[in-house]
């Protein structure tokens, strides 16, 4: 597996098949004498902003964006996407989603109505 080609920027799916952001960063631990080891992946707009520019990172930091760290041991598999064996629903990734849902979207009519889904053959 190549970390930057196969893991970085991949779609993350949590244990409940929920889309849970993209792999925005990978943290590698280096201890004296031991070979480097992947400690965790990081998901969050502040991590992403750091990759673009320092200024953007400072800006995003002001928005109090929090990142979500997933230890490498919690990754179930890596293929078309990175699947976790943890639940992301209560992670900081869903803070904005939940805030928007309870404060705005649910106050608008028809926000919860079940859309008719086309049957596919």
């Amino acid at each position, binding site marked *: 597996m190549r970390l*930057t080609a196969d893991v*970085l*920027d*991949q*779609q*993350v799916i949590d244990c409940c098949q*929920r*889309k*849970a*952001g*993209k792999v*925005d960063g990978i943290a590698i631990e280096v201890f004296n004498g031991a070979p480097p080891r992947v400690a965790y992946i990081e*998901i969050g*707009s502040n991590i*992403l902003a750091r*990759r*673009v520019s320092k200024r953007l990172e400072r800006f995003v930091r002001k928005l109090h964006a929090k990142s979500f760290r997933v230890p490498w041991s919690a990754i179930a598999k890596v293929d*078309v996407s990175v699947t976790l064996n943890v639940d992301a629903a209560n992670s900081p990734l869903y803070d*904005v*989603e*939940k805030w*928007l*849902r309870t404060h*705005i*979207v*649910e106050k*608008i009519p*028809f*926000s*919860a*109505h*079940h*859309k*008719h*889904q*086309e049957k*596919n*053959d």
Partner: protein
Amino acid sequence: MKNILKVTLGILTSIGGFLDAGAIATNASAGANFGMGLLWATALGTLFAIFLVEMSGRLAVVSKHTLADAMREHFGFRYHAIPLATELLVDFLVLTAEIGGACIALQFVTGIPFKWFALPVGLCIWVTIWIGSFGRIEKATAFIGLITICFIVGAFRLRPDMHAIASGFVPHQPPQDAAHYWFLSVSIIGAIITPYVFYFYSSGAIEEKWDFKDLGVNRAVAALGMTFGCIIAMGITVVAAQTLQRAGIAVDRFEQAPLMLTDPFGRWGVFLFAASLAICCFGAAIEVALAVAYVVGQAFGWRWGEDLSPKDNARFAMTYTIFILLAALVTFTGIDPLKVTMFSMAMAVVILPLVILPLLVIMNDEKYLKEQRNGWISNTVGVAAVVAAIILAIVAIPLEIIGGG
């Protein structure tokens, strides 16, 4: 049988996707100013569109990645941030243009200044996306969009000179107004291969759960849908050439355009034109608004999908909500929709290479396409499209300045 239905629906949808404020304005303007002289630009743009749309559909079918997913993954976020940011700006302009186009159509019919329709039209677009599902929206806009066939009927009724039409397929620089001629050719191509189309199409293939069986459907829809769209667009050019050019009317305001259908259809002409413009713009506005939510959602890995209720993907729903609201507010200021349309098409051309060059690279990557990588024909047309896009992107802004007015 099911495949025939799928292809038919796909064709109807692509006609809708092909014709929008930009296509109508640029083709009408081409006919009014240069007769049949710019038909080649419509044909060339369509050829590129067929291949590029087929590629974005194939990418989604084979790799289960949308264009935005694959772009971020393959080139990293540092690169992806550039097409993402510029795409949002251009999509905002295009959405403003489509809302403006629909409002102008309502002005033709009611006589009430277009800006008063901006917020109601924006609201209709938003309600349709908020409540509708992908399949329902697709079907509804596809069938209502058939009204644009009036341009082909009109073109035949006017008995155009077939030799003139044939000669329009070869570029001839006119003795005067050369800058305007080339500006229009850039805008026509820009209106056909607007980048949001590729993001939208690849997301649509995932929304409709296309799989390997559908590769043939994808190819047929891309080829036939774009061709039919192209024929209608050429119908607009021919009608405009036969009517507006003869009457000496250069379309520099949208208000002059409906006159082109009064010759073949009498007083119903204005209504037919208004209905075609309104429906095309409405359909395109829905596509652009969804495309914005798709690219943002996919860039950050959110849950996305038009078939989920807004409560289940609040960020996705708020993204298109905010975009539609802002674009409707800009139209409400009374800014000339035709100017916004022409400007947005030129800007779409400027960012085109940022989107289709990565698309072409991804289409040759075994990791995504496996055995379905581009063959030499797709690659030849793809490279030609990229080269053309780079040239167009370089000349678009200078031409906008000298030939845009």
